[in-house]
């Protein structure tokens, strides 16, 4: 049970390897590109799931998504740095640093105040970006072609494949790390903090610190997600990277996925992406209706998210972490 390779880790490894193989050998470019975007977003959702287990939902993580995306884009545009081994970690780092700084304020808040304060901060960044002509205002600007180990490519399929494999690797690594984290003592202080902060304090651990740490973690993951998305799309702009609707979308996918497993964000995010694409294709006038309707349906009929459905179909007990399978409330 306690060795590094537990069931979940094996599952994640097999799952990501399978997706990577499918991607390289079977999937057409467009689907690979969807998986790339979906898995990028899933990184952010992974962080939000950790916060959600702690009883916190942020309506402002577009702040970190945007910071990550703009970091990657600006490194290329202003400094000529396109090396993904630099730009992507930088995206996570910038988000983490800002998250760390804001965390000192935000960690004091709970419930709707936590959600709204995050929203306010993200809208401040949105307001700044929209009015900054040097960053293209509402238009944003294009991201330079990325390089890996200093090597760039003109071929879009090669570029896509490399990014795809990168997101699979980072996604796998993040999922495993978050899984290990959730199994650690500190990780148990997610549902524990949600359930009873007083008890946590009186057991000798600082609730503020526990929340701060998780907040920085989610910020870093969301920044990374933004960085990947910027590279995948080749474009950044405030409306699709920093506006509150982006935060809403992240929370949407979080709820869709459910807090049951670290694999859920990846599956939920992929489903969301496919849902949106097909809705957009089939009913271009009413795709929001389908997306919104799905959200309502999940809230009403699948309060534990997709993962609870998968678990039910799998017919297995899903107790993997302490209290980990009860993310949905009972508060």
């Amino acid at each position, binding site marked *: 049970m306690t060795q590094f390779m537990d069931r979940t880790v094996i599952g994640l490894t097999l799952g990501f390897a399978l997706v990577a193989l499918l991607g390289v050998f079977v999937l057409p470019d467009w689907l690979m590109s969807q998986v790339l975007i979906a898995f990028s977003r899933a990184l952010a959702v992974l962080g939000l799931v950790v916060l959600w287990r702690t009883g916190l939902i942020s309506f402002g993580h577009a702040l970190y998504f945007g910071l990550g995306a703009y970091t990657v884009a600006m490194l290329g545009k202003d400094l000529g740095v396109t090396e993904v081994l630099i730009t992507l970690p930088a995206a996570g780092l910038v988000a983490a640093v800002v998250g760390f700084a804001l965390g000192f304020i935000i960690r004091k*808040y709970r419930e*709707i105040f936590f959600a709204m304060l995050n929203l306010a901060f993200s809208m401040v960044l949105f307001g700044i970006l929209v009015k900054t002509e040097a960053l293209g205002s509402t238009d944003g600007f294009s991201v330079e072609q990325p390089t890996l180990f200093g090597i760039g490519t003109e071929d879009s399929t090669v570029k896509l494949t490399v990014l795809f494999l990168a997101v699979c690797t980072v996604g796998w690594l993040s999922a495993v790390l978050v899984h290990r984290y959730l199994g650690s003592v500190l990780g148990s202080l997610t549902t524990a903090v949600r359930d009873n902060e007083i008890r946590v304090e009186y057991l000798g651990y600082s609730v503020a610190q526990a929340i701060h740490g998780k907040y920085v973690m989610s910020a870093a993951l969301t920044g990374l997600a933004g960085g990947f998305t910027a590279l995948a799309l080749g474009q950044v702009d405030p409306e699709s990277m920093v506006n509150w609707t982006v935060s809403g979308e992240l929370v949407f996918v979080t709820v869709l996925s459910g807090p049951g497993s670290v694999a859920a964000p990846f599956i939920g995010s992929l489903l969301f992406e496919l849902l949106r694409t097909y809705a957009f294709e089939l009913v271009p006038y009413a795709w929001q*209706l389908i997306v919104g309707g799905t959200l309502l349906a999940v809230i*009403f009929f699948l309060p534990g998210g997709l993962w609870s459905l998968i678990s039910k179909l799998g017919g297995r007990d899903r107790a993997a972490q302490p209290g980990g399978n009860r993310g949905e409330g009972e508060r």
Partner: protein
Amino acid sequence: MNLALTILVEGLGYASYLFIVSLGLTIIFGVLKILNVAHGAFYAWGAYSCAFLIGELSTMGVSDLGTMIAIPIAALVVGVVLGSAIERTIIRNLYGRDEVIIVLATFGLFLVLEDVILLVFGVDPYFAFQPTLAMPGVQIGGIYQDGYKLTMIALSLVVGLISWIVLNRTHWGKLVSAIIFDSELAVAMGVNVRRVFYVVFVAGAVLGALGGAYIAPTISVSPGFGVEVIVLSFAVVVIGGMGSIGGAAIGALMVGLLRAYAVLQWPEIELFVVYAVMAAVLIFRPEGLFAPAKARKI
């Protein structure tokens, strides 16, 4: 001097529509504890119905001034029909769920209602300018202000006054205040909370629709314009204190005046300033400037 006067008039004009919309949002939050993202949809539906109705009335030969009757009709019909339907089918079944989940459900609802607008009213913008033609421009501070904007300020005063009277001077209003103060106690005292919830939700929806209906004649009513107002009215409500009527008024005034100042004097900070104030208020007074009194629970 002219500048100050213009900032004041612009600020008040902007504040008054924000106030009406935010008032609906804040009473729903105060009583039901639901932060209703779908409020933006009430606003949009109010505007569309009003614009549509004004167009119809105008083609029927009703005078420009007469078409204003469409405003209260649209607000009431949208608020009551849409508000009731949503409360009965969605909101009612979510009481007791995690508040954040409820916010998200209303987000889903908002997406759905936005697209239903497209299906019902089409993608073409509506123009319902007739009422603005009925009001002569007035020269204030050296420039012409449209008379319609001034009536909007008056309307927000009236709405504010009526709300105050209803909440403080009527039996119903006292029930509502009691629930805002402590809903468990209210239940214990035999208040039919479900019924109050229902009425308040519908009243909030009417106010949201009224904000939209009243602004409709001054804008091109087009798809997607309900999005912006959501976060703006969130900001108003947060600044003022969630659940407080006075707070909504102060919040709307602050946002309105700040924005007017920014546009006229310092356009670069226009968007930034509102949310910066929202963040500052949350940091220093997380309950808002005028949060309503709450029962202390231990």
